[in-house]
């Protein structure tokens, strides 16, 4: 094999120049002739019937072209087929402060905003639900007229093996309750969209979306238009982190308005509105009961999670399953019961944020392991090393794990941080904490269940020696364009700058499902390799004939095609393309990727499977002022099992960016709400919808970060690569909490681990009370009977013994695309 020229080398990303010159064109940078501007009227009530809307005065204002209300949007949509519960503008009721009620399209933003203020809405207030406990306690009024019952959106229960027997047989059973506060993505780019009716009369929308394919589907459905007449162009996202993964109200509104007015219509949300779009981290209360043997093996886990979903479905059913999916991928847990419940509340909808549903329970599990290690008088690193899930195996909940580099990760951070000289040995106020994690390299199931590829790539080779690569993948800053171009350039032996990437455009590019679940590098990458290898084969035949050497001896490298045994027998890549084109005609190829089928065949088995999983270990060092509770983080050591780093510069950026975002969640970030006093309507409002008050770390808050990459190529990934965008965030929050305990001996079983909580725990400790801050108990939830699935190592076949035959059910639903992956 020829040595790699591009893959594995630190490189300037292909879109680097555009970004540093300000030429990357984000959605709000698009300015078109005759363009109009849109503003939305948002609800001032958290839960209310819309009694009437009077748009008369707004329509009369000079410069106003159109006023829209929910009447124009009769069809519901949503990201998951099981929860199409949104309308572009509210029709009969509002469900949170910020829910869009009406839209004005006018000659400029100022006019649109003035007109918005002239719209009179009469609301009939309803009881509001601020906390999950309230939603569980009161079935009426229902926030939605669907869901499991009352204000419970979804409650699920799965059991893999006889958990109670395993608990009874354990030497110790640990029982802990944790709480993880919600937080939000806070991308610096505010969501923006520009919609246009093109000269053919079709709809084009340029928009800051991570998921153009799903928006394409939502627009077709909600606007009742043929999908073939809609073009979605995902502009480069100025940060996503999951917050631009849903189809959004404003996208549907400007699309409709552009079609009605036959003029370009733009909207750019203000920062306050971005907080209302949310779809961020669910607040989760969780209870971990873990059976452990005296030598530190887990016998069973019994996990309950309660998710505060906010006001709409969003990805929530998937988020619920994700809180229980990946524990077994990290550690060997032979028997497992998972019960998860998501309730509706009158707050902005929660959804997927980096780590989607898994960081909350990762926090609980890793803090509990720290407690277990202490109880067993074991080193937390050693304890974990003894319980890592076996590689190339099927977990108790039927997730097929591939290579596992977790032991190397743990060993690396222990060595690098000098853990053994620090843990429980540092002076009061300084401490270290360790935690581990794993994450998907792409969701194994599509959101809309079908047998189609998850990612497609097309290649065009032309006589210039240049190559154009087309893929629906969406550049959100993670470097997907660079991964795509780097892979094609490596296989064809040309320079990355010889390759032009056309991405995220539903008219021009084959479907890629979107930038979520850390799926792009693996799925798009495998499709790109296939397309590029096919192109290489097409070129190699005629060139081999011309040079008089066997095709399998040809090497493509350094912009040349040459005989590996006599390298001077060669042509340039450009000549090679011309030789081949003369022989076979225009050269174009395709590649596609479909993940392996899930091993579990029970309802819920569609959430968690992935072609392979990444692993991470981190040690965080903290300084805690034992007087005030003030906490700082001077150093983080992190090791990540990535398989193969395609562009190490970008990989390092993903790891450090994850550590940064994890520290924000661990220490300060909160999407929190408060009730206004009765004289101000008692509304439930966001505490601080501004970047100044929603605290996030700055350059002054960043610790030194020592990053190590563990590179054992995984055969399932392109050049052996696994994900890196999300996994490294996960261990940070629990490692901080564990380090605080090491520093000052108090447990903060609640995120964020903010100074006032540490102080409260210190004061409790000083008063002789339990040195802990965190939830006292897990709320009562009426759980459904669990689906009983025998684990594979006990002879199970992946089906639930008490679930009706799903194959029959599937047949009955055949042809109905709305059969959601997450349902099955």
């Amino acid at each position: 094999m020829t040595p790699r020229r591009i893959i594995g080398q630190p490189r300037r990303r292909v879109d680097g120049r555009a970004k540093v010159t300000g030429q990357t064109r984000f959605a709000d940078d698009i300015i078109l002739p005759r363009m109009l501007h849109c503003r939305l009227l948002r609800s001032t009530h958290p839960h209310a019937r819309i009694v009437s809307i009077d748009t008369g005065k707004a329509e009369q204002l000079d410069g106003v072209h159109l006023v829209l209300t929910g009447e124009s949007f009769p069809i519901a949509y949503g990201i998951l087929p099981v929860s199409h519960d949104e309308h572009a503008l509210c029709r009969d009721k509002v469900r949170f402060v910020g829910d869009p009620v009406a839209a004005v399209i006018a000659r400029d933003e100022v006019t649109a905003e003035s007109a918005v203020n002239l719209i009179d809405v009469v609301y009939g207030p309803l009881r509001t639900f601020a906390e999950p406990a309230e939603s569980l306690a009161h079935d009426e009024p229902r926030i939605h007229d669907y869901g499991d019952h009352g204000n419970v959106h979804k409650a699920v229960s799965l059991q893999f093996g006889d958990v109670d027997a395993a608990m009874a047989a354990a030497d110790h059973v640990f029982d802990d309750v944790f709480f993880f506060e919600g937080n939000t993505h806070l991308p610096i780019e505010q969501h923006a969209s520009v919609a246009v009716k093109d000269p053919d009369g079709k709809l084009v929308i340029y928009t800051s979306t991570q998921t153009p394919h799903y928006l394409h589907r939502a627009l077709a459905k909600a606007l009742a238009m043929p999908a073939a007449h809609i073009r979605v162009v995902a502009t480069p996202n100025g940060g996503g982190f999951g917050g631009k993964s849903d189809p959004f109200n404003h996208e549907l509104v400007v699309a409709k308005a552009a079609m009605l007015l036959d003029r370009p219509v733009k909207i750019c949300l203000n920062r306050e509105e971005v907080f209302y779009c949310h779809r961020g981290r669910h607040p989760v209360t969780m209870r971990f009961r873990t059976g452990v043997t005296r030598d530190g093996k887990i016998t069973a886990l019994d996990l309950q999670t309660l998710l505060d979903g906010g006001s709409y479905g969003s990805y929530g059913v998937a988020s619920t399953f994700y809180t229980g999916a990946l524990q077994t991928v990290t550690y060997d847990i032979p028997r497992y019961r998972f019960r998860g419940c998501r309730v509706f509340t009158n707050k902005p909808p929660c959804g997927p944020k980096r780590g989607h549903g898994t960081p909350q329970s990762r926090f609980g599990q890793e803090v509990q392991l720290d407690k277990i290690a202490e109880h067993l008088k074991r080193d937390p690193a050693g304890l974990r090393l003894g319980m890592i899930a076996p590689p190339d195996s099927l977990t108790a909940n039927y997730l097929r794990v591939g290579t596992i580099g977790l032991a190397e990760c743990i060993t690396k951070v222990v060595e690098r941080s000098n853990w053994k000289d620090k843990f429980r040995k540092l002076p009061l106020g300084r401490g270290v904490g360790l935690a581990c994690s794993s994450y998907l390299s792409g969701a194994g199931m599509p959101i809309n269940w079908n047998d189609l590829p998850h990612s497609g790539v097309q290649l065009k080779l032309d006589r210039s020696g240049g190559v154009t690569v087309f893929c629906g993948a969406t550049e959100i800053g993670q470097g997907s364009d660079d991964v795509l171009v780097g892979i094609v350039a490596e296989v064809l032996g040309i320079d990355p700058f010889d390759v032009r990437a056309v991405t995220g455009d539903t008219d021009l590019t084959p479907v890629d499902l979107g930038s979520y679940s850390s799926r792009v590098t693996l799925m798009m990458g495998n499709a790109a390799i296939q397309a590029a290898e096919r192109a290489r084969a097409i070129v190699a035949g005629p060139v081999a004939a011309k040079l008089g050497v066997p095709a399998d001896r040809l090497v493509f490298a350094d912009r040349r095609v040459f005989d590996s045994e006599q390298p001077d027998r060669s042509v340039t890549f450009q000549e090679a393309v011309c030789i081949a084109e003369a022989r076979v005609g225009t050269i174009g190829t395709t590649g596609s990727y479909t993940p392996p089928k899930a091993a579990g065949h029970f309802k819920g088995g569609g959430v968690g499977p992935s072609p392979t999983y990444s692993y991470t270990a981190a040690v965080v060092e903290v300084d805690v002022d034992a007087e005030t509770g003030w906490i700082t983080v001077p150093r983080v050591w992190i090791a990540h099992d990535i398989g193969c780093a395609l562009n190490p510069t970008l990989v390092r950026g993903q790891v450090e960016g994850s550590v940064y975002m994890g520290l924000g969640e661990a220490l300060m970030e909160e999407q929190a709400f408060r009730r206004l006093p009765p004289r101000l309507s008692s509304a439930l409002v966001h505490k601080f919808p501004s970047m100044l008050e929603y605290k996030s770390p700055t350059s002054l808050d960043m610790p030194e970060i020592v990053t190590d990459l563990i590179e054992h190529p995984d055969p399932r990934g392109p050049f052996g690569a696994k994900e890196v965008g999300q996994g490294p965030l996960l261990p940070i929050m629990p490692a901080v909490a564990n380090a605080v305990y090491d520093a000052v001996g108090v447990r903060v079983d609640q995120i964020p681990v903010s100074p006032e909580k540490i102080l409260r725990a210190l004061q409790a400790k000083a008063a002789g009370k339990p040195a802990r801050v965190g939830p006292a108990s897990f709320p009562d939830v009426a759980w459904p009977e669990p689906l009983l699935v025998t684990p594979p190592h006990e002879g199970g076949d992946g089906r639930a013994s008490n679930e009706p035959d799903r194959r029959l059910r599937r047949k009955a639903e055949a042809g109905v695309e709305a059969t959601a992956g997450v349902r099955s």
Partner: protein
Amino acid sequence: MKVRLTCSVNQEPVDVLVDDYKTLLEVLREDLQLTGTKHGCELGECGACAVLVDGSPVLSCLVLAVESAGRRITTVEGLAADGRLHPLQECFADLGASQCGYCTPGILITAKALLDAEPNPSRERICEALSGNLCRCTGYLQIVEAVEAALRLGAASKQRQPLLAQSEPGAGQ
């Protein structure tokens, strides 16, 4: 009401009629179509809209355009000169300091102001100077390293040094 604004933007004279309520940010982006300058809050919280006014970094969302009359304004579009990128731009592109790229123009401008004012800032000083510019992607470390690399490349002096070999498209072939 429209008012006349005369100033210099990126060393070119500007003479335009603008709405009197508009901020410098809005006039740059909307009237002059210099969309390289970004916005993340329009409240002076994120730093994305930083531009240089007479050489000092200013949040253009907090300045009325009319206040800029007669001033010298530099935006990210004005950093490159003579067809070559500024060393800060080269180093940001090469060293992973720009991921989504949205905060990048404001950070480049802030860094340029620092390096123009101080010949040899320490890492602490760089972190302090950039602490008003939020970045959600990088974790800041590659940004700080890129500023230091640009310093070594001579960003603080007026002379431009030779660029990194790998920087130009197709170089090194």
